[in-house]
Each structure stands twice: as C-alpha cells, then as structure tokens.
C-alpha cells in the first residue's frame, strides 16, 4: 500500500469567511471576470452538457470603452436602451425617496436596489404579457420597467387608504397579477418552487406563457431552492430560474451559502439544467441572457438557471447597517461598476445621449417620483392620514368569513 500521505491528525472545522472585514482594504482580485464579448452564445437548443463551462464564466457585453461587443450584443435598439436607462434611473430615484420617507417615519420599512437596478429592469423587457414572475423583495424593476404605476407602489409602502394590499403586507411586498408579478411573501425561497409549479401548470394546460423564479444568493441554501431545481428538471418546466448573487445575505457573505461550489450557477449542472452566469451590472448582457433563457422556456426546451453577478451597494434593508460587517469602500472596489453609469456611457458612446441630457433626465425622473410621492401622501402614510380600516383586517382570510372570525370581528368592535 502506498504511504504517500501521512497518518491523519485530528479533524479541523471549516467556516468560510470573506477576504476582508471592516477596516480592511476591499479586495475582489479572486473574482474571475471574463472579458466583454469573450463568452460564446450557444443556440437555445444546445445540450446542457455542452455548455457546462458557461456556469463558470461571466457573460458580458459592455467593454471598458463602453462599446457593446461579442455574440450577445446587438439585440436592443437605441430607443429600447434609452427606455432601459430611464427605468433604472427611475428605480434609483424611487429608492432614494422611499428610503428617505422611511427615515422620516412615513413607513416602517424599506428595501432598496442600489447597484442592482439592471437585473430586474432588463429582465422584464425579455418577457411577454401574461408571463409570471415570482420575485423576491429586490426586483421592483420588474414593476417599474413594466409601467406599473409608481403611485400604487407608494400607496403600498405607506399602507395608506389606496394600498392595493389593504395594509396587510410589509412595505415593498407588492403583488400584481395583471403585471405578471406574484405576491411577495417575505419568506425566503418559497416562491422558487411556486414558479416551477406555475410553469408546470402552463405546460399542463398547453398554454404559451412561461414563469420566472427569483432568489438571492443566500436563499439558495433553502430546501425550496433544491426542490425547485428537482421539479424543474424532472418535468422540464418552462421556467427561468434566476439567482441574484449580490454577494451579501444581510451580513453573511455569499461563501456561506455557496460552500464548495465554484459558482451559484453551477448548482444547475447536477440537475442537468443549462446554467449561465452573467454580468448583473451590464443592462445589455442581462437582457441578452434573459432573452436566451426565456426563448428556451417558450420553445418548450425546459428550464434555465441564470446567475446574475452583482453587488448590493446599499444596506440589506432600512433596518440594516452594512458598515458593521464589510468595508465601507467595498462597493467602490466592486469590479463590475455601476449599471446606470455603464449604460449611460454606452449611450453616449452610441451618440444618442450626453452628460447634459443625462442631468436633465435625472431631474425629470426625480420630479416624476416626487410628484407621485406627493400624491400618495395625500392618501395617507403609515401613521398619519387615511389608512385601511380595522375591518379590512378581518376580510380576505377566507373567501367567505367563517362564523368564528365574524364573532371575533364583533368582539373587536369593528
């Protein structure tokens, strides 16, 4: 017997940790970034085993010179790109105002998208009417880019008299069947297998609509994530399984959920699901990959896993302070840059945009957000003005109120 290895000593316990903590110098040198245009674009009917390598690269379109390059470029017109820029700017302005409103006590809670705007805004434009998203709390770009009224979003955030959810849900837990936006739970990962179930139903009914599931890097550790991949793989469900890897799950760095897997996209490989990785801060790349995955689903070729590599620049929520667990300058060091700035520079490079027009657009977008906010506030904020009645609290638990709940409502004096 070969004695090439020494006798084993005592075992040691392994807990992954991020490279740098507060006080340290941010370092992303271990993040392997593919060159823009470098990663190939396979046909949508490619066999999953032929593109296993794509789970370990990063599909990128915009290069350092703000040029769109490579096989994933060229899908969007000037106008579509200008619209995309406006959507991301709107989401950013919306976040800024609502974050401030939370600090002013007008609502209890808020969650912003800073740095991740491209993911949901660009994905939305790859869908058709009737398709259904099963989002997390950080995909409001699906609503903004789908022209859902900001006023309705704000009414929900304020839990005011026009709140479409009647004050029953935590701020930002929107729902709009009409806009293909499934009710956000606030629980984690539950929506992922639901998206697969919805997609299975669409296939069972020989419909043409597809579903998109959404999850964060941290929540991929939940068992519902794995259930979703099993079901999607087994039944070849027409679903796009999106993983938004923004590096942080509150204070927990992505390595805790990822473990020994090289990437989150690689989770799809064991299930025989094609898995792509994309620069989440590159609007063009996100859109191109979304289109590819959506087309696969639509052509009945089954599910696709897509990992969006991005960075959560802001706090997890209005209740979080990231300076306690990561360097304050870490977001500046993030190698994939800012999605708004990158698309802006690309549009300038294309000759359809300028610094002046951008400044003007920023002002216009902010004015529109503020106008919506002012109107929303005339209908009340969490603690002042008109709000849903206590009677509303008892409605909608069941289709018809059962006797025991009716008695409780009477006891409650409403």
């Amino acid at each position, binding site marked *: 017997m070969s004695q090439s290895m020494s006798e084993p000593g005592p075992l040691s316990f392994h807990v992954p940790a991020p490279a740098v903590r507060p006080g340290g110098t941010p370092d992303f040198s271990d993040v392997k970034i593919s060159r823009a245009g470098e990663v190939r674009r396979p046909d949508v009917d490619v066999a999953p085993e032929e593109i296993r390598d794509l789970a370990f690269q990063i599909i990128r379109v915009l290069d350092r010179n703000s040029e769109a390059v490579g096989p994933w470029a060229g899908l969007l017109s000037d106008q579509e790109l200008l619209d995309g820029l406006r959507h991301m700017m709107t989401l950013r302005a919306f976040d800024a105002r609502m974050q401030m409103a939370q600090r002013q006590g007008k609502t209890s809670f808020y969650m912003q998208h800073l740095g991740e705007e491209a993911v949901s805004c660009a994905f939305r434009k790859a869908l058709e009417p009737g398709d*259904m998203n099963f989002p997390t709390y950080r995909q409001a770009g699906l609503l903004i880019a789908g022209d859902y009224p900001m006023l309705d979003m704000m009414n929900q955030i304020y839990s005011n008299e026009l709140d479409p959810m*009647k004050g029953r849900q935590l701020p930002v837990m929107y729902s709009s069947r009409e806009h293909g936006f499934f*009710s956000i739970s606030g629980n984690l990962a539950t929506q992922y297998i639901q998206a697969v179930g919805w997609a*299975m139903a669409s296939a069972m009914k020989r419909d043409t609509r597809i579903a998109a599931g959404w999850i964060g890097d941290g929540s991929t550790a939940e068992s519902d994530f794995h259930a979703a991949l099993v079901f999607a793989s087994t039944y070849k469900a027409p679903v796009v399984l999106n993983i938004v890897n923004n590096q942080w799950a509150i204070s927990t760095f992505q390595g805790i959920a990822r473990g020994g897997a090289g990437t989150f996209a690689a989770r799809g490989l064991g299930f025989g699901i094609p898995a792509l990785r994309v620069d989440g801060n590159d609007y063009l790349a996100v859109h191109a990959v979304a289109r590819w995955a959506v087309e696969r689903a639509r052509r009945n070729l089954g599910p696709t896993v897509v990992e969006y590599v991005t960075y959560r620049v802001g706090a997890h929520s209005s209740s979080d302070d990231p300076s306690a667990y990561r360097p304050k300058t870490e977001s500046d060091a993030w190698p994939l840059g800012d999605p708004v700035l990158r698309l802006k520079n690309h549009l300038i490079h294309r000759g359809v945009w300028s610094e002046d027009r951008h400044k003007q657009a920023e002002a216009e977008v902010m004015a529109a957000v503020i106008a919506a906010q002012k109107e929303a506030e005339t209908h009340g904020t969490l603690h002042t003005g008109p709000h849903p009645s206590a009677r509303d609290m008892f409605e909608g638990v069941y*289709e018809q109120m059962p006797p025991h709940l009716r008695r409780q409502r009477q006891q409650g004096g409403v």
Partner: protein
Amino acid sequence: MPRKTMVEAIRDAMDVAMQRDDNVVVFGEDVGYFGGVFRCTQGLQQKFGSSRCFDAPISESGIVGAAVGMAAYGLRPCVEIQFADYMYPAYDQIVSEAARLRYRSNGQFTAPLVVRMPTGGGIFGGQTHSQSPEALFTHVAGLKTVVPSNPYDAKGLLIAAIEDNDPVIFLEPKRLYNGPFDGHHDRPVTPWARHPQGEVPDGHYTVPLGKAAIRREGSGVTVLAYGTMVFVAEAAATEAGIDAEVIDLRTLVPYDLETIVASVNKTGRCVIVHEATLTSGFGAELSALVQENCFYHLEAPVTRVAGWDTPYPHAQEWDYFPGPARVGRALKAVMEA
C-alpha cells in the same frame, strides 16, 4: 346503493372532481402509475392521463410549493402527502404560503388546493406513520381542516374541499380506510361493505365543510370526536351503558359551534376525545369553546381523553391509543361528577 371502502370513496371523489373540472390535478409520491401506497389514486392516471395525475419527487415542500404555484395559475391541485407524519417539510408552504396567499395579495392570487394525508395510528406504524397533527393546521388562519370518519362523508367532504376556493387540509384516518374501527384491536373489524355508512352514491354530491353530524343521540353527556374516535366513542358509550350523544365534528375549522353548544346545553356534560397528543391539542380549543359558551349548563368539568404527550410508540401502541376502555372510564367519571 353501492358500498365502498373509504379508499374507494376517496378515489371516487377525485374521479368525479377530475371529470367535472379539467383544472383538477392530482399528484404526490407514488400516486401516478402505482396509484398511491394506500391505493387512493389507483386508475386515475390511466383514466385522465399523466398530465392530470402523476408521480412527484420525494419532496413534500416541493409538492405543496408546486401546488401553490399551480393554484395561482388557476388549477385546483389535490395533492397527497404519503403520511401526515411526512408533512413537516411542507409546513412552511402550507402555513406561510397557501394559507396566506389570498390575504396578503388582497385576493389577486388564491390557493384553492387540497392537501390529503393519511392520519392517526392503530396500524403499528410507529412514530413516523401514526401521528395526528391536526392542531398544527387548526392553529393557522386561512386553512380549513377536515377529518372524515366514513366513506359517505369522505367522498362528499373531499369533493367539497376540492371545489372550495381556499386551501383545505384533508386528514384521512388510515385505520378507517377499510372499516369502522372502534378501538377493539383484538377483534375483527366490520368491513365498510357491511356498514350503512359504507353506502356511497355514484356521481357528484357534497357534504358541506363546517357542519358536524350527530352520530348517536343521547341526553346524559356530549362526546365531541372526529375520525377514528367517533367509533371508539360510540363503542365506549354502548359498553359503559351511558346515554351519550356522540358528535362527529367532520370539519375542525371552521367548526360547527351551533351543534356543539346545542348538545352540551342539553346534556350538561362534555367529554372530548382525540387520538392526537393532549397538550395544546384541538381538544383544548373545544374545551375552551364549551366553557365559554355552555358554562351555566355544565354539571361536570369538561374532560379530555387523548393520546399521551409522548411520541407515538411502536410496541406500546394500544397503551397509547385512547381506546374504548379509557373513554368509557371518562364517561363514567363525568356522569358521577
């Protein structure tokens, strides 16, 4: 009238519901080709095709989670959890998702689904094939919880559950699948074919959710029971020679307070029987309701007979099971109080 076992009645209910509505789909572990480990879905895949009845991976959370998504799409899934004991991985999907979807989305999305699961012991199933977890569902706002005790009710309640627009937990007492077991485990069980409640009409009918049934009329004491314990209570009353009124709740939530209160006000005594563990069991809720609503009619303390607060044992099954002797002792004690 044709007589059916409870298994056949449950199968018939799904068959009828699937024929009437293309949106009714059935899936779960082993339910497709094989027809389920208790045979409740036998023949459905053959009859309706594998897009209406199919096998699922061993993932209870996946089964219920997928059902929630299908229900949001517009289907009416009727899924099987192989044993109620296997339900726990699906609990989050049931409690946080199915139960609250209508409420949290203000009715934009609903979850008209049924989760069927065999419940209860008496088959030497040990701790993982014998539990009665109904109180884990009755505690959850937004759920309805049903426990049938016979083939006629099982079919009518299951059709009503499938047609209901809210999520329904449908607990099937597995000891009753083949006959009305009264707790005398050392005696043969009368098959449903020779029992009047084994008479199951063909075609469509419903038994409304939320309505109890009086199984045995009496004036001395009211027994509140459901599932297997209905027959145990009847046997106990007969053997102890006590003029008991036995109420089969059929639906735990929403419960039929009117029938309960009318009976207890008449008898002045109440014994509650369930197989599930005692502490925080559904009997505690029933006891509180009786006390709140019938206090001035009560002649004796409200008494509970239930499974002991232990895991469900294997060898000691009949020491654990609240059989007719224990129920009979409680009835006598309440009558003498």
